[in-house]
């Protein structure tokens, strides 16, 4: 049985978290993500979970790292300024390979910016915010139902690949209310599981991986007394100064994700089958794009939308294929141009790539986007 509700995107994330089996949330209030913390403060104790409002953004990130080490599924939620503060520990979680989910409901920046206005200005921060070489996953919902689905997917990916997953929302999606159909009972939703060691504790090497390149991760307290560190470590988990260990760790952490792009990278194609011109847009900006494509089609223009659902790793193959298929690509994003450079790089000059960057506190209207699209494609 299911129920039909009218929910905000942020509330759908909460439902997704409960359904995914999240048992720990560490947070700090920040607009426009606060509803997630407020709602989980109420919901988690009802399922035996723990919510804690930490003293700052950094601490909330530290708390979920600690809680994840006990085997729990964990979440934190923030927005741009808080996301910046969390970055050192996001890098730590990449290096130590700690499964966790960070929700970033983006707002206008930099600095305090415009807290209640929509933006997609953290595209590059999500990928490169922390220092050093690192690899992680960022996924972006474009509807309230998708907030629920992608929250589940965030845990599936995070646990499978032992990697931080960023649920990269924007204020449009976080605060928009839409119809969503949810199961009455979450008990039948498959729960992501963390791989466990099959050797005896005495033989356990914390970062020794099989061909999946993902090491098993036992919870603290069950007999495998392992060491967690942000220092470069070898397969024993202990620091090693050797350059070969640094290279081996980096290579494995890269390949554990980038050898599985088919599993990780998702895009939606809308009206793309016979499309001659494409819009690339994601999250809140994609909502404008669906409508703009429909309007273009009514005018007889063969327009289509490619909507990246996975933002990082970048949809390299999909964009390359797109560049081989259409006559032009317009990237529409709510910032002054970030994702467009990735698209341009992947298109590699095969077709012109244009940018419709919107960064004035308001999402574009479909008519504005259509006008920019026609202008760019000289239609």
């Amino acid at each position, binding site marked *: 049985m299911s129920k039909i509700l009218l929910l905000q995107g942020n509330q759908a994330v909460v439902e997704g978290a409960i359904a995914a089996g999240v048992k720990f949330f560490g947070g700090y209030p920040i607009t426009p993500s606060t509803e997630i913390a407020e709602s989980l403060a109420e919901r988690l104790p009802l399922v035996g979970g723990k919510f804690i409002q930490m003293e700052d953004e950094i601490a*909330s990130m530290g708390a979920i790292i600690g809680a994840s080490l*006990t085997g729990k599924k964990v979440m934190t939620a923030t927005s741009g300024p808080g996301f910046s503060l969390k970055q050192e520990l996001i890098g730590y979680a990449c290096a130590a390979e700690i499964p966790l989910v960070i929700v970033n409901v983006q707002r206008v920046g930099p600095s305090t910016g415009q807290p209640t206005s929509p933006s997609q200005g953290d595209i590059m921060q999500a990928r490169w915010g922390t220092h050093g070489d690192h690899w992680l996953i960022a996924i972006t919902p474009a509807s309230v139902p998708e907030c629920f689905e992608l929250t589940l997917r965030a845990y599936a990916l995070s646990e499978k690949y032992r990697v931080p997953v960023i649920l990269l929302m924007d204020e449009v999606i976080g605060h928009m209310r839409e119809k969503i159909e949810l199961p009455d009972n979450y008990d039948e939703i498959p729960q992501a599981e963390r791989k466990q060691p099959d050797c005896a504790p005495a033989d356990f090497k914390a970062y020794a991986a099989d061909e999946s390149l993902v090491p098993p991760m036992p919870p603290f307290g069950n007999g495998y007394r392992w060491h967690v560190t942000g220092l470069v470590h070898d397969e024993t988990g202990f620091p090693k100064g050797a350059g070969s260990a640094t290279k081996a760790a980096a290579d494995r952490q890269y390949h554990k994700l980038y050898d599985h792009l088919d599993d990780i990278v998702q895009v939606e194609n809308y009206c793309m089958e016979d499309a001659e011109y494409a819009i690339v847009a994601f999250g809140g900006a994609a909502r404008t794009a669906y409508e703009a494509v429909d309007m273009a089609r009514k005018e007889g223009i063969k327009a289509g939308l490619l909507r990246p659902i996975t933002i990082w790793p970048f949809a390299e193959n999909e964009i390359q294929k797109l560049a081989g298929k259409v006559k032009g690509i317009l990237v529409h994003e709510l910032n002054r141009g970030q994702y467009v450079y990735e698209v341009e790089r992947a298109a590699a000059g095969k077709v012109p790539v244009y940018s419709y960057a919107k960064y004035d506190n308001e999402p574009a209207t479909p008519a504005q986007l259509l006008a920019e699209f026609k202008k760019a494609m000289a239609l």
Partner: protein
Amino acid sequence: MSMEQLIDKYFRPGRLPHIWCPGCGNGIVTGAIVKAIDKLALEKDSVAVISGIGCSSRASGYLDFNTVHSAHGRALPVATGVKLADPSLNVVVVTGDGDATAIGGNHLIHAARRNIDMTVVLYNNSIYGMTGGQYSPMTPYGSKATTAPYATIEHDFDIAELAKAAGATFVARATTFHTQLLVDLIAKGIQHKGFSIIEAVSACPISFGRQNKLGGPADMMKWQRDHAVMLPAWNKLTEEQRSGKFPIGLLYEVTDRKEYTEAYDELIARAQGGNK
């Protein structure tokens, strides 16, 4: 149990020798932690040792427990997550004066305020040792440091008073000279249900002692002997007599304040019972 036996039992094979300089007090403090754990006969699987960054924080890697060498200043938030998510674990936080009171100072007062059950062993060597001798918030006023070539003009924290004011329910201090006291206080701190902090006054002859002409390791331990005063004796001293000295022992303990994870379990029961 002899120290050799303790090392066999509680230190990870192949991880020694440690990185600490000759004469460093960190080994004494780390030894005191395992002696305290041994005294309490805690199962190794039930102990989580969580550290930050710095000389003292390297201790976690040597110890055969569930261990985390976290980021600079962040041992307490990570420890809070571990403890709240699994209250059955005995959580010991290993940190230094810079790690705990400068970059991690905010976390220290808030962990104390929550009265979450964990034991912080603060290795106070008066200096940033790992980076080569810069002043910390616990470097004594007027000391030299590589970043205070004209001597520091910043006043130092009394971390025991700070922790007490912030809500810690067990506050103690010992030195690497008073090792039996240190072991006893750490053991009592672990047994204490709530936030406990033990300041372990330690010597850093290389990065602090040399630039302040404090002599060698033995001289610095003699200084501890001559300047630390057991609390009952301290209480009898006049302000004038206390000058330049500091009290050691169990400085403060209260047991009537509810521990955080217990309070959380009650909250869960309340929520599930339908009461807000």
